[in-house]
């Protein structure tokens, strides 16, 4: 995988609203200026702590004392056979599923188990579903507008108008996901790949610190897959990204560090070459 074009990188830097200076940026510096819910404290370099997480459904342990750390700015790929607990893990992080045991922290200070889905989303965790989920009857532009960080209250929404800065930010994301030409198309009219990008764009509009991306290239053409790889690698560093994917070629093209889940536990974890050489991994997953 060749490095993404410089242009894309700088764009991603602009998008994520942070410069490369050492000073930790205010989240959403580029965005609305609306009061943000307190972001995570990542002073220890780790953005997500999952410790001893256990989730069981009717006796079946979807997650079995899973422990996983995601570092700030990391692009982490997670693979595993069906039923390994990948989606359940995302459900726990986003507040959809409450674990039976264990703890989940976003940075040093935010206890994910004590917050609801919208609160977690507003704190800076964005999630892309396995099946692309966009607002089909809204235009591409409106999809991004609704995803924008900012006040989520009903009354404000009645009189809310896009400011020039907000409009500009939507334009930037439209450019980044390559849908500028289709901004007024209803999202339902987009191709499968375009919907996936729109959904990533919607995540970007939220200015998340952590992106959870579930099977981003499922059903994509090779060109679309390549473009998605560029997009995700360009975003890493500015955002922490966790990608769950089955497509091994795609994983090889973007992964720096790979985690293999198996039966609700971490089976192997490390640089991709090392993991691929792991005998147990070959046995349960790659060997199939």
């Amino acid at each position: 995988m060749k490095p993404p074009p410089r242009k894309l990188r700088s764009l991603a830097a602009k998008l994520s609203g942070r410069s490369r200076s050492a000073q930790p940026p205010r989240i959403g510096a580029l965005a609305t200026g609306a009061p943000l819910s307190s972001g995570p404290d990542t002073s220890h370099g780790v953005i997500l702590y999952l410790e001893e997480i256990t989730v069981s459904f009717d006796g079946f342990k979807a997650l079995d004392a899973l422990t996983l750390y995601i570092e700030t700015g990391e692009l982490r790929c997670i693979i595993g056979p069906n039923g390994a607990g990948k989606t359940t893990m995302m459900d726990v992080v986003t507040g959809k599923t409450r674990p039976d045991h264990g703890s989940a922290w976003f940075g040093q200070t935010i206890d994910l188990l004590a917050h609801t889905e919208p609160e977690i989303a507003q704190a800076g965790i964005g999630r892309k579903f396995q099946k692309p989920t966009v607002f089909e009857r809204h235009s591409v532009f409106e999809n991004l507008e609704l995803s924008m960080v900012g006040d989520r209250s009903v009354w404000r929404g009645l009189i809310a108008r896009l400011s020039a800065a907000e409009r500009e930010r939507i334009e930037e994301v439209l450019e980044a996901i390559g849908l500028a030409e289709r901004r007024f198309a209803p999202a339902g009219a987009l191709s499968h790949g375009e919907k996936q990008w729109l959904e990533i764009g919607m995540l970007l509009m939220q200015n998340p610190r952590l992106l959870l991306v579930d099977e981003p290239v499922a059903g994509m053409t090779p060109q679309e897959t390549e473009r998605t790889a560029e997009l995700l690698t360009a975003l890493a560093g500015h955002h922490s990204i966790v990608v769950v994917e089955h497509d091994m070629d795609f994983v090889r093209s973007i992964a720096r560090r790979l985690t293999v889940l198996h039966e609700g536990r971490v089976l192997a974890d490390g640089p991709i070459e090392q993991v691929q050489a792991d005998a147990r991994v070959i046995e349960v997953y790659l060997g199939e």
Partner: protein
Amino acid sequence: MSAPKVTPGAADRGLLPHPREPRPGKPAPEAVAAARRSPLALVLDRPTLFVVLVLALIAVIVPLLNLAVPEHSALHVRTYTVGLLGKYASYALLALAVDLIWGYCGILTLGHAAFFALGGYAMGMYLMREIGARGVYGNPLLPDFMVFLNWKALPWYWRGLDHFWLAAVLVLAAPAMLALVFGWLAFRSRVTGVYLSIMTQALTYALMLAFFRNETGFGGNNGFTGFKDILGFDLQASRTRVALFAVTVVVLALGYLACRFVVTSRTGRVIQAVRDAESRARFIGYRVESYKLWAFVFSAVLAGIAGALYVPQVGIINPSEFSPINSIEIVIWVAIGGRGTLYGALAGALLVNYAQTYFTQALPEIWLYALGGLFIGATLFLPGGLAGLIARRPIAGSRAASG
């Protein structure tokens, strides 16, 4: 993407600027214009202007044809017809309320007649107090049915309702409070779909039973009738009836504009987003329950206003207004007219009610079959209702599609 690699076929997929675009990445000028339309222009799009203009004309012309045209003239509109049209107009406002919550927010309510009836009862209480000592029993304080039941004092919730303004507040507050409590409980527990619909049916049925009872103090199964006047104007006089009609049509137009304002606002787009992909809306940080609750309460208040306008024109309100079948009929009007479009709901209410008036006089025995047939037909062949026939034309600028 502003300096893209050229991949074969990329332009077709919309990834690259179209060759004829003068500057890459810039949208077509008309598209920009569409996005930058002022909120006022967005609210007052062409169909809205048309609807409001037509309603304004009706509010002026129908009263003129009644009051200024002599009775023997072919153009004269009878006072009876004016009352009928006023009834349709209040039903149309009720249909807008249901469309907002069902068509835009995706909550199929089968209990909206309850809010309509509550608004109607609030107005009815005022009208009963306004009768004063002119009732059959001549009691200056107690309405006839209370004297008949040997009640000695006015129940506390009847106090002060001889003031119109207090009744007007109650018209808004009673449906709003019920919707707030019911909606808060239902949406917080994430009750959705058919379960919620059944609960709304149960709600209106329970209220019907409560209002049927004499002890609740709302006139039992007779309800309220025999109204004399409103704000000192005789309810039997043509002028009063024509004025009530004009007020109803004006309120309908204002209600239409209010709904249009809501659905074109960002809140309106969130409400529609909740309808289409609730979990996605939740994961991008919207408190879905708050939006549903807000829409539900707003819709209930509109329905209450419609009920308050309905009662002085038909001259009676009784517990049958709460009957579950009434709520279902509203949904049928909206389905036939076209849910998710305001003008569709309006047209559906007017058409179906006109048809009902016609058929129940001409062929009374087939009306219910005709109504059922219309509903099934609309569901099978016109999923977008009558409005869906119009909206099938390609629309420039997607925002037009959301109104």
